[in-house]
């Protein structure tokens, strides 16, 4: 069964304190792994797509990496505005790219205190 597990469930950081969020996955053939950001009361917002092990993507203070079993979202020198829930999702090869069927993890709630 395809599965996505995110850890920790919640993470509290001080402003400037770098850390990483983990997304481990079990899927029968990975088509792609995706990171989204979700602010309270809003819909998820797309951040990154990773397709193969060794791939890295960066955006401002965020850097996403991918191995054959997990992905990390590294946050460097976070600011209070980085506070949000970060969602990880995967798509299995058996789903055609047209459907975009994604399996989401439960998310990591990040709080950054000034």
């Amino acid at each position, binding site marked *: 069964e395809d599965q996505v597990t995110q850890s920790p469930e919640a993470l509290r950081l001080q402003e400037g304190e770098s850390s990483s969020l983990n997304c481990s996955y079990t899927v029968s053939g990975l088509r792609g792994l995706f990171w989204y950001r979700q602010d309270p009361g809003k819909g998820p917002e797309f951040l990154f*797509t990773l397709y193969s092990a060794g791939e890295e993507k960066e955006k401002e203070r965020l850097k996403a990496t991918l191995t054959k079993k997990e992905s990390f979202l590294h946050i460097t020198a976070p600011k209070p505005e980085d506070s949000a829930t970060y969602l990880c999702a995967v798509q299995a090869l058996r789903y055609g790219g047209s459907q975009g069927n994604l399996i989401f993890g439960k998310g990591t709630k990040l709080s950054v205190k000034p």
Partner: protein
Amino acid sequence: NAGVTQTPKFRVLKTGQSMTLLCAQDMNHEYMYWYRQDPGMGLRLIHYSVGEGTTAKGEVPDGYNVSRLKKQNFLLGLESAAPSQTSVYFCASRNPGTGAFGEQYFGPGTRLTVT
């Protein structure tokens, strides 16, 4: 562009009542999706559509119906609401030819409570 909009934002239903959630997108996207998000669970796909006039079942379709009569609109119907359908519902859309296939654009959500 407004992006993806959802109507209504909040709704309280009694068990057995029916309602329709409306999703509209102004990005001319082919694909549209309905998800539900429950505490302690990830987003789960209810139904989706790969084009006007087409619909397909997702992971948790029971108790819901959908229609895509116009390309820009995707309707989610609850014929006889149950307390288990209390959730936050999100609509999303994407285009097959632009960006990564996982890059879905989400609406702001509809918070539904069934008593």
